[in-house]
C-alpha cells in the first residue's frame, strides 16, 4: 500500500436545499472539489458516490453516475455506496484502498442526501427486522443507551444537554451549519420530549447537503497542492453482535479506533480535533469513551470539564456536529473529513485549533442486535 493524500474538497451548507435536486447538489460539490484540487475531470480514475435514502424516498438509483456526469467525470468506474450513516466514510475507505493499492492515481469521494421532505418520520433499521416491528426506532435505541449510561456511571441529564450546548456554540462560528443560535442547558432540557431523556434539542435534525473530496497518490500530490493532507489511517468495521450486548459502551468504536491508531502510529493523546457521530447527545458521550478520549464511564464528566470545547484539551465537533448542522446521511461522513482538512490546512477561521496536525473523524450507523452495523474511523495528518 502506498501513501494517499486529500488534495481537494467541496461542500454545501447543510440545511434546506428545496430548490435543488440531489444530482444538482452532488454536481456542485464535484465541480468545487475538482477546482480546489486543480485537476481536470479526466484525471479522476474512479468515483465513489455515497447516499442512503434516495432509493426509498425518490425511487432513484445508480445516482453516482448522474452526479459525476455533471462534473465531466465519465468512462471510469463509478461505485454507488450505501452503508447507513457511514455511507460517506465507507465510500472514502474504498477510494483510499483503490488509490493506496495503486489501482487508481486519483479518485473522487462524494456524498449527497436530501432529507427535507414532508412526513419523513423516524428513522428505523428496516421494516423486515423483528426489532423494528417490536417498536425499535432510532431515538429509543439511543434513549436506552442514555438511560443505562446514567444508571451505570452517574451521567446526568444536564451533562447530556451540555453536548448540544457546546456543539451549538461551535456552530455559531460555522456559516455552513443549519442551526447557529446559541442554546442553554435549560432550553435543551425543556424542549419537547422525544424519548426520555432525549428532547428535540438532543437529537440531530434532518438536512440536505453534499460534500466531495479528491484523493491522490502522495507521490503525485505535490503537483497539485502545497498543502496535501495525508490519510494516516482508514478503518471500517461492522458490529460483532455478541449476546448479551453492552448498551453502555461501544465496542465497535474501540475496535475501529484502535486499528486506526495503530495504522497511523498515533494515539488519542496526539489528536488535535475530532468530529464524531453526534446523532444524539448520548452518542458523543459514548464516543469520547470508545475513542479513548476519556476513561470508560467518564464521558459525562468529560463534557462538563470543558475538555471538548474550542480551546479545551481535545475539541470535538467544532463544525457544530450533526446536532447543529443536521444529518444528510450520505454527505455526513465526507463532510466530517472535510472539517479536518480545513483544520489541518489552517483554514478553519474562528474555529481554528492552533497548530492542528492530527484529526480524527468517527462515524457510526444502524442498529442491530444491540450493536451497530457499521463504524468508521479515519485519521488524517499534515
Amino acid at each position, binding site marked *: 500500500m502506498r501513501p494517499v493524500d486529500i488534495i481537494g474538497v467541496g461542500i454545501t451548507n447543510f440545511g434546506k436545499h428545496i430548490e435543488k435536486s440531489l444530482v444538482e447538489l452532488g454536481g456542485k460539490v464535484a465541480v468545487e472539489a475538482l477546482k480546489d484540487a486543480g485537476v481536470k475531470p479526466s484525471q479522476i480514475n474512479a468515483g465513489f458516490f455515497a447516499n442512503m435514502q434516495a432509493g426509498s424516498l425518490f425511487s432513484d438509483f445508480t445516482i453516482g453516475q448522474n452526479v459525476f456526469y455533471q462534473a465531466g467525470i465519465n468512462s471510469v468506474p463509478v461505485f454507488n455506496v450505501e452503508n447507513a450513516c457511514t455511507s460517506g466514510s465507507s465510500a472514502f475507505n474504498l477510494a483510499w484502498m483503490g488509490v493506496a493499492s495503486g489501482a487508481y492515481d486519483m479518485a473522487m469521494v462524494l456524498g449527497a442526501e436530501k432529507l427535507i421532505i414532508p412526513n419523513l*418520520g*423516524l428513522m*428505523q433499521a428496516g*421494516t*423486515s427486522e*423483528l*426489532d*423494528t*416491528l*417490536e*417498536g*425499535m*426506532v432510532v*431515538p*429509543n*435505541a439511543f*434513549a*436506552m*443507551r*442514555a*438511560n*443505562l449510561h446514567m*444508571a451505570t456511571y452517574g451521567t446526568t441529564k444536564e451533562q447530556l444537554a451540555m453536548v448540544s450546548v457546546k456543539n451549538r456554540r461551535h456552530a455559531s462560528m460555522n456559516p455552513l451549519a443549519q442551526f447557529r443560535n446559541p442554546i442553554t442547558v435549560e432550553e435543551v432540557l425543556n424542549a*419537547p*420530549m*422525544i*424519548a*426520555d431523556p432525549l428532547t428535540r434539542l438532543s437529537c440531530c435534525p434532518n438536512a440536505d447537503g453534499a460534500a466531495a473530496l479528491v484523493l491522490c497518490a502522495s507521490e503525485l500530490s505535490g503537483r497539485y497542492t502545497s498543502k496535501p493532507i495525508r490519510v494516516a489511517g482508514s478503518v471500517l468495521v461492522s458490529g460483532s453482535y455478541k*449476546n*448479551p*450486548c453492552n*448498551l453502555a459502551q461501544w465496542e465497535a468504536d474501540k475496535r475501529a479506533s484502535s486499528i486506526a491508531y495503530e495504522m497511523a502510529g498515533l494515539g488519542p493523546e496526539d489528536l488535535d480535533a475530532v468530529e464524531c457521530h453526534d446523532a444524539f447527545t448520548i452518542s458523543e458521550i459514548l464516543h469520547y469513551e470508545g475513542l479513548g478520549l476519556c476513561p470508560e464511564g467518564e464521558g459525562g464528566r468529560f463534557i462538563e470539564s470543558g475538555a471538548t470545547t474550542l480551546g479545551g484539551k481535545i475539541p470535538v465537533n467544532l463544525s457544530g456536529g450533526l446536532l447543529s448542522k443536521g444529518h444528510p446521511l450520505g454527505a455526513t461522513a465526507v463532510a466530517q473529513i472535510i472539517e479536518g482538512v480545513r483544520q489541518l490546512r489552517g483554514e478553519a477561521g474562528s474555529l481554528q485549533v492552533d497548530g492542528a496536525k492530527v484529526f480524527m473523524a468517527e462515524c457510526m450507523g444502524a442498529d442491530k442486535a*444491540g450493536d451497530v452495523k457499521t463504524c468508521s474511523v479515519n485519521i488524517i495528518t499534515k
Partner: protein
Amino acid sequence: MNNDLKPVMEGIFEAGPSPQLIGAICPECQQKFFPKPMVCPQCLGEVQDIKLSPVGKLYTYAILRTKAMYKLPQPYAVGWVDLEADGLRIFTLLDPEKIEDLDFGKKVFLRVGPIGVDNNGEACLRYYFTTQDGGDK
C-alpha cells in the same frame, strides 16, 4: 385474547394464556438465539427450536413520546430484557399500560396481545413484557 389475529412475525412466539417465545439452540455450541437464525452463526450447524423462559429482568428501557410507527400507543416503551434462564438478552416491546413501573433490574413477564398493526397495516399480535405478575390480562 383475539385469537384470529396474526403474529407480527411468523414463528417467533406461541400465543395463549401462557405464551412463550420460540428461540433456537445449537446442539454443538449450546448457544441459544432469539429470533431463530438460519444456521448457528458460530459453527454453521443446524439449530433446533426451543421455548424460551417467559420471565426476565429489565436491563434497560426507553419511552418514546412522539407519534409511533405501526399504530403503537403514544407513549410506548421498549427495552432489553435478560432471560437469565437462557443466558440471552433480547429486545422487546414493554407493556404500554405499565410504563410508570419500569426500572432497571425489575422482574418482567412475557405476554402476547393485540397491539398495533403489522407491515400490511393489519391489526396483529405482538409479544411484550410486563411488570405485572400472573395471569393473562
